[in-house]
């Protein structure tokens, strides 16, 4: 594994073919047996270091398989498959709606195995799209901004807190810009669908001149620096290790509903070695893969019991309803409404 991580930088430069879509990182994991008999190409939105331990374990199990791991943002991942027909054996993305559209438009290969059959109904769509991690979308608030009060537990309480103490929050609220971020768009559309209080919260936030971010990293950074006191709709699994040890920040799973993102994988029809993609998927969903996803990758694996224990966690429904918000007219109309609420002169 050390060798693998050491190779990342070098390989990134060497292995990158000419691609029409934009990638952020391209890494080649050499086969465990030394000589590669086959290569598994993975296109993913998940950072390389998150899945590297899982890939290493997969290679230890299957010596002779080299892995090419390409990271791109969710729009680029979708475009690579849907528009460029890029040849990858597996596509991993946190953008459930775009993954759903790939599967719905017939760009995924059907897969059946013991592991896929064991997935709960809500964690897969047909035998085309499979979830391997369930990640709550949380709120992070600075203790200083609470004024000694306990952290709000619902959107109603949050709205009340913001309304009662505008001086603490003015200009110091951060959230995704849904126009620029696919994940942010997915979160607000699902919020709007699930709760009526969301729009009220959006209005109140809008009155407090919120900061909009394209991705989580700068938002967390600003939060840690104290520039922000509230971050709304952040992936808990991403934020948790980054704010760990900081006593000043509280991570809250709102109890009226906390969206739970499903990180999904599919094997595209353009795959050169679909059997390797299927093999890797089975590994991700199998006992060893699940354990590694939890311990090494720091992502909560699919677990119906964990969901049942926390009834406020609502996995985003993996069904055709996701396609609605991808509709161009719908998106325009929704964003107009959102901007009207949040961006106030």
């Amino acid at each position, binding site marked *: 594994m050390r060798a693998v991580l050491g190779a990342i930088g070098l390989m990134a430069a060497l292995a990158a073919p000419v691609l029409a879509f934009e990638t952020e990182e391209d890494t080649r994991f050499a086969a465990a047996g030394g000589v590669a008999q086959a290569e598994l190409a993975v296109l993913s939105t998940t950072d390389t270091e998150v899945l590297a331990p899982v890939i290493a374990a997969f290679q230890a199990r299957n010596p002779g398989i080299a892995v090419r791991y390409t990271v791109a943002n969710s729009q680029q991942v979708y475009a690579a498959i849907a528009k460029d027909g890029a040849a990858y054996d597996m596509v991993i993305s946190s953008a459930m709606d775009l993954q759903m559209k790939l*599967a*719905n*438009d*017939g760009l995924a290969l059907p897969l059946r195995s013991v592991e896929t059959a064991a997935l709960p109904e809500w964690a897969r*769509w*047909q035998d085309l799209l499979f979830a391997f991690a369930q990640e709550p979308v949380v709120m992070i608030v600075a203790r200083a901004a609470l004024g000694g009060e306990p952290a709000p537990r619902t959107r109603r309480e949050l709205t009340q807190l913001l309304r009662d103490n505008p001086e603490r929050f003015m200009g110091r609220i951060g959230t995704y810009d849904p126009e620029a971020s696919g994940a942010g768009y997915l979160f607000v559309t699902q919020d709007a*669908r699930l709760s009526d209080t969301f729009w009220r919260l959006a209005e109140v936030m809008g009155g407090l001149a919120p900061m909009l971010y394209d991705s989580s990293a700068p938002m967390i950074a600003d939060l840690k620096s104290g520039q922000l006191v509230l971050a709304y709709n952040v992936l808990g699994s991403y934020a948790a290790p980054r704010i760990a040890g900081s006593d000043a920040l509280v991570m809250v799973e709102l109890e009226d509903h906390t969206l739970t993102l499903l990180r999904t994988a599919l094997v595209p029809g353009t795959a050169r070695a679909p059997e390797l993609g299927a093999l890797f998927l089975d590994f991700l969903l199998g006992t060893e893969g699940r354990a590694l996803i939890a311990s090494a990758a720091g992502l909560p694996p699919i677990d119906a019991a964990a969901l049942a224990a926390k009834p406020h966690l609502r996995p985003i*429904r993996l*069904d*055709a*309803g996701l*396609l*609605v*918000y991808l*509709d*161009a*007219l*719908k998106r325009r*109309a929704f964003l107009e409404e959102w901007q009207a609420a949040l961006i106030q002169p």
Partner: protein
Amino acid sequence: MKGGGALSLRARLVLQLLVLAAVLAVLLFVAVRTVAGDAAEETLDGVLGAATLAIADELRGGEEGVSVDLPHEAFSILGSISEDRIFYRVAVEGATITGYADLPMPGAAQGPAGPSAPLFYTAPYRNTEVRVAMVRRVVLAGRLATPVTVLVAQTRSGQAAIAARVANRAAGIGLGVFALAAALSILTAGSVLRPINRLAEAVGRRGPNDLRSVDHPTPAELRPLVESLNGLIARLRAALMRTETFIAEAAHHIRTPLATVRARAETALRKAESEDARETLRAVIRAVEESARSASQLLDHATVVYRSDRPARETVDLARLIEGLVQSFGPVAGLKDVGIGFEGTGAALAVMGDRLLIEAALRNLLDNAVKYSPADTDIVLRLSQADGSACVEVADRGRGLSGGAQAALTRRFARGANVGDVVGSGLGLTIVDEVAAAHGGRFELTEREGGGTCARFWVPLA
């Protein structure tokens, strides 16, 4: 016996019922599948149509043209009823404003779609087949009435899954119906054939001399068979009767001239002078005597055959009957120096039966005993009762059975191996056996202890 190759009625019936059941089960399977398949398609069409209408309801006009706000529920409901792929298209006069621009419009043959009643059609799309619902609406856009078409399409893997499930269940139902029908057909075959079996048993149970007509209750279909059978029996009985009558007539006609011959021979014997001639005449008389006895046994037998068909039912006192017989045989036995002893119960012993027949049977028994008894021996008659029957025992000191079976001796015209010079027709024991059978009694011949034969004749008590 021919007919072994022909299929039994039962097998034929069961086989035909099974074929019928199989055909019905297959028909049921096809019917359930078709109906359920249609129902599934109708249901899925209904949901697809509702989704299309829900989208059509969100069509908006305005100065900038037509727009639509896709309702989440429309797709969400489609997604919850089956995990099928979904495509949609909203077009204004052929120009797609949102959705999948290559989603096919209906062919000309499919008729018009209304504003509230969706048109459904199946079309190939993206290497698969999709079911499409189409709704047409007119929207006021830029003050112009603009026709808008909304298409929502769905793959039908859900329907295929339902069809497969229904097919499995229908196959299960079909098999169940077949199994039930098979069990019922076996029962039916049994119950239909039961009257035939009963009739066969009833006819089979009859004794060898039972020539009564069959009056067993039978279903209408078997009545011609039973009538023919009865006709056959009647003809057989008539033929037998004619034979017996003929024999009786013949015996009767022989007996009279024999009596004349005997009288003449006795007269001649008395007048004969030479010893040779006397010897010859005595032989003639003995032969004539035996012929007369045979003729009367033939007569007896004919009487038994005739009457045993419907024996008279009257009360007969066995003790008095036997006393009469002992008296009438006294002189004959006396000539041979044979004594006849009768040990009765000291009282009357009444049985129910035909006096003539019982008398003929006992006379033949006694006649046999006298005939085979050597000189200076006694014949013992014993009358007793046990287990509801009266038993007449006739014991002599004759030659015994010498191992011959009783069954062989009671056959008509059969005689023992040790009869030697004693003349006889072989009809005597047959008569006794038949009379016993006609009365529901029994006849038994055994060796007597100390030599001789012991005959026992049972008749049920009155």
